[in-house]
């Protein structure tokens, strides 16, 4: 758990927060482009709302996790919840997860940001300056100044180009895609149409897909899943598995010992035979055939597909 250490408004609808350890401890370093998952209050379904936000720092020995959140009045409420936070408020924050890291062997980095998609690009730019990497930033935004524009100007100097719309962007970026050195990597974060267009134009210009990167949220965190009931065949006992609790945790809390090691669906140690019911497999251990057979489950990560599951335990 972290607390809000500072707050500022970057634009009319973008708020910047620094989250710090309540005891002042250092936070784990992270790769540029990493995101954290915040618990943003509780949704109408009674489940915690979890939103992923990019960290804007370089990732080197951070004393805070900084993130910028655009208020979305039509969204599920997570961004509004964050905009209502005050100094000192507590926030549940995951470890940083890296899904959009700079490629260490790249000769040059072309960074493209659209609107609030600037956040991981800023992180890349900070790290690129910190470590002396060759890079350039193309930043497109509408109306007023884009969030973090000042930061990018200070960081990048001549390596920054800004645009007020798509046609301006492409008049510069399209030729750029044709003449950057071999070994350049391309990174985009912004609205889906921007990501798609950068991808398509880069492919058409002959970029190999391994050198085209974009930010995608939402794959790193396992969903908490819905609640279900599991019956133990040996005793006939029913064990409730609430949302957000793993089947393994629920069994252990019920006093059922299941041998286990990694608790991440990898090692295969906690495999349990299934007597009845459908399994939602989420592990990396079982083969496709084994999963299809449906006669066993890795309870550390997998859950029931329906309301009930019966185990040979």
């Amino acid at each position, binding site marked *: 758990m972290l607390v809000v250490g500072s707050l500022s408004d970057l634009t009319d609808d973008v708020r910047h927060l620094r989250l710090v350890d309540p005891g002042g401890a250092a936070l784990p*370093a992270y*790769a540029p482009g990493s995101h954290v998952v915040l618990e943003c209050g509780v949704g109408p379904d009674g489940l915690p709302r979890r939103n992923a936000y990019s960290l804007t720092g370089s990732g080197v020995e951070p004393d805070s996790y900084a993130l910028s959140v655009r208020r979305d009045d039509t969204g599920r409420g997570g961004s509004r919840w964050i905009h209502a936070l005050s100094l000192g408020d507590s926030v549940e924050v995951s470890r940083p997860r*890296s899904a959009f890291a700079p490629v260490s062997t790249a000769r040059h980095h072309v960074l493209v940001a659209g609107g609030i998609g600037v956040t991981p690009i800023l992180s890349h730019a900070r790290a690129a300056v910190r*470590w002396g990497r060759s890079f350039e930033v193309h930043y497109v935004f509408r109306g007023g100044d884009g969030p973090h524009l000042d930061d990018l100007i200070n960081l990048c100097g001549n390596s920054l180009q800004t645009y007020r719309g798509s046609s301006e962007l492409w008049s510069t970026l399209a030729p750029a895609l044709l003449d950057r050195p071999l070994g350049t990597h391309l990174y985009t974060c912004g609205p889906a149409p921007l990501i798609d267009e950068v991808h398509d134009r880069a492919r058409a210009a002959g970029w190999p897909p391994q050198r085209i990167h974009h930010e995608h949220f939402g794959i790193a965190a396992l969903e908490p899943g819905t609640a279900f009931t599991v019956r133990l065949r040996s005793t006939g006992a029913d064990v409730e598995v609430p949302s957000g609790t793993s089947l393994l945790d629920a069994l252990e809390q019920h006093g059922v010992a299941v041998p286990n090691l*990694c608790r991440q669906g*990898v090692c295969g140690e906690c495999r349990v035979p299934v007597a009845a019911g459908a399994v939602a497999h989420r592990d990396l251990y079982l083969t496709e055939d084994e999963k299809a057979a449906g006669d066993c489950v890795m309870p550390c990560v997998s859950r029931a597909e329906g309301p009930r599951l019966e185990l040979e335990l």
Partner: protein
Amino acid sequence: MSTATDSRVATFPFPFAHDTYRYSTNVEPAGGRVVTAAGGWGEHVVDVDERYLTELAERDRILAADPTRFQALPHMEIAQWDAMLAIMRSLSASYPRTMSLERDGGLWRWTNHALDLEQAFVHGERATLPEPPLRFIGRQIQEDVVLLDQREGQLWGDAGLVTFAADWSLRFDVGMSFLQIHGPVPRIHTEGVITRAQSFLMRLESGQQFRRTNWTLTVDGRLDTSTETYPEWGRDRRTLADGPLAEVGERLHLRVEVQHLIRLGASGAIMFLVRTHMLPFTDIALVPAWAQRLHSVLSELPDDMAEYKGITRIRQPGIDWLADCRTRSGS
């Protein structure tokens, strides 16, 4: 039994949970104590024991004779700094009386009283350290280190300091992918062990630490059994196999690697720490449950796995010695 032997046996990470052995992705979260029949191990990620100075002297001797035991591709600079800080943090947390890491703004100060060493440095500034960061800290720990870069959906072994390799060569492997490095290991590819291990490692989050063990047999307790020095130690297997059975107990060692896998921060690299522990069969025999289990594992081990571990010649003498020992003790 001497105190030194006592402590070596008590802290030995005996690796076998069953009477047979197969490769598996046997990873578990790091840091928990594992209780064995003779004691326990596992509290510290970077482990300093009574052989600290001896093993560091051995590492320095090997490194001076063959500087290629340290390898770092140019893009691993950030990972080297990450690794150095992570190791310093681990040491100072585990051994606060002898090791400390302090930070004053941009200036860091590392103190290692065990080596009477103090070093101030600025993170990322090469000129503030006497040698590359990974080499600097690698010469202060008993663990071998390999750093894996993550890119293009794979892991790549792009840096390391390895002087105590069990029959492999960092210089040969550096720059290879995780799958290429493990190419020669029998069975694991059809069983999917390596691809699963790689998926697991690639999903580790910043700061997460896991561990596993691996094992083989080594003659005369020699730490440096790398490919580079094969001409020096290869014949030991023959002299053991051809020599008297009575000598096997002192000469043949169970070699266990405690391996830690740690996701580093700013580089996003994976740090692979390998700590080598060795115990002669005579000491294994002090713990009857271990002697019995080792006898059964060695007897059952399939030939291809024995061949890959390089123990084809020496496992039978080991089995015979353990059987003989059991007869002598009358059980």
